[in-house]
């Protein structure tokens, strides 16, 4: 079976290289049949990668310990679900997942983009084939997933116990859907640069693909944060870990792009800027994979030290060289057709927004690579740590919040200071009222009050936008309020989908603020029957018990929680000890919209006493709710809007007739 896997990967590599060469030659010789053959080669690549994936999954599912990968990631005691998800638990499997997802995306892109704009097909095939060929080369020669041993062991080592969690089962593939998804916008833009000027440089075609990749990255980051929160047992969800940063950087650049592409769409401006953002987002996705897989930086995610780094950096350099070389070649053709009508306009707000997002991305990049740079320059790796990121990112995030609030209140193209002053009054008043209420309630942390005031301001902006839109629609159409609201969103999906995403980000921001500023914790050692108070809660320790589960010795502290006189019931904090020396924490977690009570079993004594770390993290549930709201907004924004005016329709019938 391993031979079939190896053959599939090798065959896929040969076909990817053929597709690359045939697409280039076919385009140059104007031989469409050669380009079609190249496209078919990518279909065959996808099939062969599917065969390779099936071989690996079969080996994992049947616990075939003749495969070294299976030995490293599977054990008899491990649940079957995690045997299967260990496909992406190791370097070789995750690279195969990369290649497989890329092939899926490639086929979808060839089907949709290739039909919408046929001249892009050769370039699209060539770029996707080139990226596929790189990953297949790695799989075939550098990190082969089908290495076997002649004397297989009776049992495997299993995955790192920290990865045996449902959130970790879905976090990597979601993140990879985002990372790999950034290849398609890159391929579209590079294909357009190769094929010649088209006005939009392919950027507008790339927008929806970028939105999908952005959404997957968002959810991947959220799932990772949730995993960190419930599994790692340190009480937090984000630690500015290099690999977390690796996923955040392309997300920031993609976010900037999703705003600036609207300017290009409306004003045929910023084409060069948007092309650069697409290339940067792709480059950062490769850089992120390099950070994740090379082990060059110490991280909770770096499960491996591997020789991949040089290959990834070489490929990244080549991709950026080619892409930016093409940009330089087409520089004059990418110039803007228009200029800003007025300094005070939605376009200007979006430009400033782009500057802030890129400033955050650059700061995160700098902080992330600083250990590498310092090691090269001084021989000593210096980690900058969370304070560096917090000091730089938090003020910029406030600036972004301000723009989130002001942007929707400014008209596209031209706005007057008077209209802005008039429109900003109500949301600003809402923010100020919220601030006064928080101060009256005894909240004294200035940063938190400012954050909540800004969140209130932005939320009020979205509400005002919705109310005004409904009012206008009712005035024009005489619809009821609910129907008008539904129609307003349905007929302006991108605008209102975007506002809903903003609301989700606000919830996220509130959750981060609440949990980072107002978190309280204490460490206590209790005997059975003793109680400790934390925040509004009292936690009673009822005793220790032990059991075995999945090859681990599980120590459980039975607890009972009270809020005032109210008994909130039992719950338990556990610690699992594995024979290999690993240990994992099962946090006792009681989550409400107000706060999370989070209890960790830190230690225990022979006489049955337990050392517990008790935390109350306010508003954490708002973060996860924010993820759901972002999903709703992104789905609405991704549904295609019907063409503004169908062929043959009257040219212009007013704001509320077109687009329906």
């Amino acid at each position, binding site marked *: 079976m391993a031979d079939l896997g190896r053959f599939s990967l090798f065959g896929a590599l040969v076909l990817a290289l053929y597709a690359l060469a045939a697409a280039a030659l076919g385009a140059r010789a104007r031989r469409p049949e050669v380009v079609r053959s190249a496209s078919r080669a990518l279909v065959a690549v996808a099939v062969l990668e599917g065969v390779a994936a099936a071989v690996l999954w079969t080996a994992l599912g049947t616990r075939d310990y003749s495969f070294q990968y299976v030995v490293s990631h599977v054990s008899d005691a491990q649940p079957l679900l995690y045997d299967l998800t260990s496909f992406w638990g190791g370097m070789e499997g995750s690279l195969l997942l990369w290649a497989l997802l890329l092939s899926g995306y490639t086929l979808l892109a060839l089907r949709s983009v290739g039909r919408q704009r046929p*001249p892009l097909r050769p370039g699209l095939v060539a770029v996707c084939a080139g990226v596929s060929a790189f990953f297949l080369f790695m799989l075939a020669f550098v990190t082969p997933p089908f290495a076997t041993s002649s004397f297989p062991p009776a049992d495997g080592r299993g995955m790192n116990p920290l990865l045996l969690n449902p959130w970790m089962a879905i976090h990597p593939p979601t993140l990879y859907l985002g990372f790999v998804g950034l290849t398609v916008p890159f391929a579209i833009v590079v294909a357009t640069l190769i094929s010649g000027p088209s006005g939009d440089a392919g950027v507008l075609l790339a927008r929806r693909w970028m939105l999908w990749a952005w959404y997957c990255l968002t959810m991947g980051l959220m799932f990772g944060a949730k995993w960190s929160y419930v599994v790692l047992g340190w009480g937090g969800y984000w630690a500015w870990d290099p690999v977390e940063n690796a996923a955040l950087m392309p997300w920031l650049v993609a976010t900037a792009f999703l705003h600036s592409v609207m300017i290009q769409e409306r004003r045929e401006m910023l084409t060069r800027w948007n092309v650069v953002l697409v290339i940067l987002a792709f480059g950062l996705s490769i850089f992120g994979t390099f950070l994740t897989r090379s082990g060059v930086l110490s991280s909770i995610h770096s499960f491996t030290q591997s020789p991949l780094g040089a290959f990834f950096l070489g490929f990244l350099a080549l991709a950026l060289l080619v892409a930016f070389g093409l940009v330089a070649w087409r520089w004059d053709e990418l110039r803007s057709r228009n200029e800003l009508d007025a300094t005070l306009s939605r376009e200007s707000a979006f430009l400033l927004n782009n500057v802030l997002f890129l400033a955050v991305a650059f700061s995160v990049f700098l902080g992330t690579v600083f250990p590498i740079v310092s090691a090269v320059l001084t021989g000593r790796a210096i980690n900058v740590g969370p304070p560096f990121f917090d000091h730089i990112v938090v003020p910029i995030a406030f600036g972004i919040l301000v723009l989130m609030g002001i942007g929707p209140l400014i008209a596209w193209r031209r706005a007057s200071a008077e209209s802005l002053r008039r429109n900003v009054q109500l949301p600003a008043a809402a923010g100020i009222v919220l601030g006064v209420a928080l101060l009256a309630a005894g909240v004294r942390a200035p940063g938190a009050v400012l954050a909540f005031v800004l969140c209130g301001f932005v939320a009020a902006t979205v509400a005002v936008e919705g109310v005004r839109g409904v009012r206008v629609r009712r005035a024009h159409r005489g619809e009821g309020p609910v129907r008008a609201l539904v129609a307003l969103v349905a007929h302006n999906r991108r605008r209102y989908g975007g506002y809903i995403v903003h609301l989700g980000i606000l919830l996220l921001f509130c959750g981060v603020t609440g949990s980072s500023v107002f978190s309280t914790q204490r460490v206590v050692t209790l005997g059975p029957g003793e109680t400790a108070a934390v925040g509004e809660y009292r936690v009673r320790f009822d005793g220790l018990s032990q059991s075995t589960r999945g090859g681990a010795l599980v120590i459980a502290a039975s607890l009972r929680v009270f809020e005032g006189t109210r008994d909130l019931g039992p719950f338990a904090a556990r610690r699992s000890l594995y024979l290999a020396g690993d240990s994992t924490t099962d946090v006792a977690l009681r989550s409400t919209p107000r706060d999370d009570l989070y209890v960790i079993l830190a230690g225990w004594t022979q006489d049955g006493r337990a050392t517990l770390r008790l935390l109350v993290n306010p508003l954490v549930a708002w973060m996860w709710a924010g993820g759901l709201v972002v999903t709703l907004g992104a789905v609405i924004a991704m549904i295609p809007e019907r063409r503004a005016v169908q062929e043959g329709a009257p040219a212009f019938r007013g704001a509320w007739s077109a687009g329906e």
Partner: protein
Amino acid sequence: MLGAALVVLACAAAAFVLAPLWRPGAAPAWEAERERLVHAREAAYRALREIELDRDTGKLDDDDYATLRARYQAEAVAVLRRLDALATTDRAAPAGAERPT
């Protein structure tokens, strides 16, 4: 057995990939100018819708609205004229003539 299966798999892949080479055909027609004009038309329509919405929701003053509306209407009309001209050219072209791509 496995060797024979691999040979069959390789032959099938090669046949599938190389088959188009025996069936040369023309490149699919794509009218770059038409697509550009359709995009420009939709951008002008969108601009007109947005300035009306911005005026109705109090973001755009009446004077600015009038100026911008005149500009985007003129742009939309110009684009529509060019699209009409393109359609007329298409109709006038002899059957089987290759369209500009």
